[in-house]
Every structure is written in structure tokens, then in C-alpha cells.
């Protein structure tokens, strides 16, 4: 048997059988934990499916954004390759592409790449003048009935012109290539820059009062939300939004011990919580008029509890009310713990600015806060949306 140290003895003796008063709220939390544990085996698939869809959408958005950069890089590589081999091999495919158009009609030139249009048209015109001094239109029959020699001459001239044409863009690309190859960070900023240039991002400022409660709520308090969302269109009608909303959730709830067969002793709890709400929503525009649009939004939110303040009041059998305070900082987070459903009704103020209202409801997919309550919020948000980069989407 080990020898006991004096300090060990002091603490062992002093801490055995502590007189800790029973806290009804701890049992409430325990009961919810038990209920959640029993329900977990039968959790509806749609909850997992919803979380999966949200994750998939995020992935799609990421891939979509990443793809924005790829065509630029491909074009750059192609240009560099062409520049490094300015001979016939590099020019031949382009000649094969252009030659049929030259043989058919000059209008076909208009369908070619803008960079090819002017030099080729100029080349053709100058060639026509060289052959007979006739205008471009007069060159049509001549082009159709050319002799092999003339064709060779023409082809040779086209090769020269195409070499010039292809050389011109290369010089531009040679200027941009070093910028593109300065590292991954510049690639990322290039992606962002490209997105921004296209003007597809919409910044939405939200301010919303809401009512947050649960089934056992007593009384009603108004909570407040303030946030910024970014919306990126996936198609003409579909878009995805994310951002951050700073919210102060005020709610009261209570009950009594009759639910567990004990004396009917009432208790109540006042909660005051500061939360960062990070939503990921998919939006579908169901109506789009010149000045108005209506969009359905749904998705999931993660709650990051910054501060939770609870005041617990209970009344004992003698009618004496006791109060207890609990304050927690950064203790709880609920990833994808809330389902969002809302409707946005927006009015265009200008090409860049629109204002709107957004009735919304937030439903719990998991218990929220220290006491794991199934909090739901409903309210109406006022929104100001800005497309700062001038899109007309």
C-alpha cells in the first residue's frame, strides 16, 4: 500500500463527498443528450444529404473558380510554343483553318479571330491590287479560278501574313507570360482579379431583426443580425452565397419538473448569445423582371458562439427563487447545424445597386449553445446589394 503524502491526505479528505447542489439545467441538457443519442440511430437521411450537398456545392464553386484561370494559361502556353517555332509547322494548322474561308468568300474573314481579320484582309486586298489593280470584290472570280502557280503564290503570301499575325499576339503574350509565372499567389490573385473583372460577384449587406425561440420558450424577444454576403452566379438563374453574419440572439425558455414526475417546480432561463453565423446558400431566381427579381434561397449555416450568457432562475418548494449566472466565451460551435430557408425580393436601383427584403427562417439541425436547445429564428432582413465591378447580369 502506498504511503500517503500530507498534501494528498488534505485534498482527499477535503474533497470527498462534496456538497454540490443539484442543477436542474444540467439534467435538462442531459435529457436532450439522451434524446439526441436515441434519435441518432434514426436520423433522417436528408440531414446528411443536405450537408453533403452543401459540401459538394462548395467544391463545385472552388473548381469553377479554379477553371477560370486555366484557359488563360493554355493560351499562353500555346502562344509561347508557336513563338518558339515560327516556321511552317506552327503556321500550317492555322493556314488550313483560314484557307477554305479564303476560297469561299471574303465575308468569311469576318468570322475569323479579330486578330487575324485586319492583316489578312489587308493582305488579300493588296494581293488583289498586285494581281490586277481591282478592288477586293473583283478578286472573287479570280480566287475561284486560280492556277496552281497563283495558288502557290497566294499560299506563300498567306503564310507570310499569318506568320506576321501570329507573331503579333506572341509579343503581347511574351509581355504577360512572366507575370503569369511569378508563383501560385499571383495565380490566385489572377483568378480573383478575373472574377472581379467579370463583375459577377455581388456584395450584399444585411440587417435583420428576428425572433429566436424554441418549443419551450417563454416570452418573445427581438434579436438582431448584421452581415455581409458574397454571391457568385453559377448559371443565369442559380447562384451560391456565403459570408458572415454577426448576430445577437436573445431568448427565454423554461419549464418545470413535472415532465420527469417530480414536484411542479418552475424554472426559466434567459439567454443572451453573440454568434457568428456563416451560411452557405444556394439561390434560384424564380422571377426576373426589368426592375424586380424574386429568388428562393436555401442552405445551411454554421454557428460560432462567441459569447453565451445565461441566467437561470428556479423556484424551490418553499417558493424561494434562486438565480444563477453562467458566462462562456468561444466554447461552442455548430458546424452546418442550422438550415436556412428564405425568399429575396429585390428591386434594382441601378445596374450596380439593388435593395431588397428577405423573409427568412432558420431551423435547427442540432442543439445550439451550451444547453443544446433547438433554436429557430425567423425574421425579415433588409438588404443592399452591390455589384461593384459593373456587371449587367
Amino acid at each position, binding site marked *: 500500500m502506498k504511503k500517503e503524502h500530507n498534501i*494528498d*491526505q*488534505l485534498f482527499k479528505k*477535503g*474533497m470527498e463527498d462534496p456538497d454540490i447542489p443539484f442543477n436542474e439545467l*444540467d439534467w435538462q441538457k442531459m435529457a436532450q443528450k439522451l434524446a439526441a443519442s436515441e434519435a441518432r440511430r434514426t436520423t433522417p437521411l436528408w440531414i446528411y444529404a443536405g450537408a453533403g450537398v452543401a459540401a459538394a456545392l462548395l467544391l463545385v464553386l472552388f473548381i469553377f473558380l479554379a477553371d477560370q484561370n486555366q484557359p488563360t494559361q493554355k493560351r499562353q502556353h500555346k502562344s509561347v510554343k508557336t513563338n518558339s517555332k515560327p516556321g511552317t509547322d506552327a503556321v500550317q494548322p492555322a493556314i488550313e483553318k483560314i484557307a477554305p474561308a479564303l476560297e469561299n468568300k471574303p465575308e468569311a474573314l469576318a468570322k475569323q479571330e479579330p486578330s487575324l481579320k485586319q492583316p489578312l484582309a489587308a493582305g488579300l486586298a493588296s494581293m488583289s491590287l498586285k494581281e490586277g489593280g481591282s478592288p477586293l470584290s473583283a478578286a472573287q472570280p479570280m480566287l475561284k479560278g486560280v492556277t496552281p502557280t497563283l495558288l502557290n503564290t497566294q499560299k506563300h503570301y498567306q503564310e507570310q501574313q499569318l506568320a506576321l499575325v501570329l507573331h503579333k499576339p506572341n509579343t503581347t503574350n511574351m509581355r504577360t507570360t512572366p507575370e503569369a509565372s511569378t508563383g501560385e499567389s499571383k495565380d490566385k490573385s489572377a483568378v480573383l482579379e478575373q472574377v472581379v473583372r467579370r463583375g459577377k460577384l455581388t456584395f450584399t449587406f444585411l440587417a435583420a431583426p428576428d425572433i429566436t425561440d424554441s418549443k419551450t420558450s417563454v416570452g418573445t424577444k427581438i434579436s438582431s443580425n448584421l452581415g455581409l454576403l458574397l454571391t457568385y452566379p453559377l448559371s443565369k438563374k442559380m447562384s451560391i452565397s456565403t459570408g458572415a453574419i454577426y448576430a445577437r440572439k436573445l431568448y427565454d425558455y423554461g419549464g418545470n419538473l413535472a415532465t420527469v414526475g417530480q414536484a411542479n417546480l418552475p424554472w426559466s432561463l434567459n439567454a443572451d448569445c453573440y454568434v457568428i453565423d456563416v451560411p452557405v446558400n444556394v439561390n434560384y431566381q424564380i422571377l426576373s423582371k426589368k426592375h424586380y427579381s424574386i429568388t428562393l434561397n436555401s442552405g445551411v449555416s454554421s454557428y460560432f458562439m462567441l459569447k453565451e450568457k445565461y441566467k437561470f432562475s428556479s423556484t424551490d418548494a418553499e417558493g424561494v427563487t434562486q438565480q444563477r449566472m453562467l458566462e462562456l466565451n468561444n466554447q461552442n460551435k455548430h458546424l452546418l447545424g442550422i438550415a436556412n430557408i428564405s425568399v429575396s425580393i429585390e428591386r434594382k436601383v441601378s445596374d450596380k445597386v439593388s435593395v431588397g427584403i428577405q423573409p427568412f427562417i432558420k431551423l435547427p439541425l442540432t442543439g445550439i449553445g451550451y444547453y443544446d436547445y433547438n433554436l429557430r429564428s425567423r425574421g425579415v432582413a433588409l438588404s443592399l446589394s452591390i455589384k461593384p465591378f459593373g456587371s449587367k447580369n
Partner: protein
Amino acid sequence: MQEIINGCIRKDRSSQYLLYKEFYAYGMGICQRYALNESDAGDVLNDGFLKVFTHIDKYETSKPFKTWLAKIITNTAIDKYRLNLKFSNHDDISGHEHLGQEAPIHADLAYKELLHLIQGLSPAYRVVFNLYAIDGYTHEEIAALLNISVGTSKSNLFKARQKLQERLMAHERAAGQPTSLPLQQINKQE
């Protein structure tokens, strides 16, 4: 008691409530010693009770329920400690075998004061002190439980005692009570 346990096996909420209430203070006492604060202690207690309710059909009625409960809650607290290992502070033992047995300590501290002193220890010291000094584990058992060496366990225990002793003395000075008793006197009184 057996009736309550049978009710818990049937997942009867009222029986679960009665069992929870009956052992709340005992379980919370363990949790408060291991946890950093009241909020953590509540979490550990409920996590522990969830295991109790989930596996209560495995409880052998021939053994004291309190012992079974204490083991589950202690293990739950250890699991929580493992999750927060980044705060651990392990030192190997070197000449720490002897601590001033003659050091005077105040013998009449209330539970909350003692708890406050224990909660003031770093997690690594606190968990070893709790396991060894209060819950009766050996250094070998602690080493296996926490995946540390026996030397580390001894070192942490030594440092925990040292810290506690310093704080007890500081507490005594702050309280201005000259009634400190040497350990020998405490032992004689028992």
C-alpha cells in the same frame, strides 16, 4: 436502487432522472477536480452519464454502483484531457523524490478553496495529482492511462504537490490566519 437501474435499462426517463440526481454531486465532484471550469465539468459529467445510461445493462449489480460510475466518469475526464494534450507539461523526474513533509499547511480549507487550488494547476499536473492522490491510481497505472513514463508521472505529481503547497501557504498568508498546523498534527488529529 435496483428498481431505478432496471428503469434505466428500459430507458425510462424518470428512472434516468432519479439516478442522475442521486449521483449528481458525487459525479460532479470528480469532474470538477479534472476539469478547468464549471462548464467543462458539466460537459464531462453528462458525457460520462451518457456512457452510464448507454451501457447500464453491462453493470454488474454485485459491485458497488458508485465505483462503476466513478471509473466511467474518471475515464471520460481522462479522454477529455487527452483531447487537450497540447497544454501538457511533462518533465522527467530528477531528484524530486522528497518534498518537505514538515511544511505547514492549513487543515481547515473548504471544498471550494481546495477545488480552486486544484483547478489552478496545469492540466498535466492536475490529472496526475487527481489520479494518484485522490483516486488512488499507481504511477504505473497512470503512465499506462496517459501514455507517459512512470518518471513523468512522478515528476508531475511532485510538481503538483509543490505548487499546491506554495499556494496553500500563500492562501494562508492572505487569510492572515496563524493557525496553520504542521502535517504531523493533522495526522495525529485523525
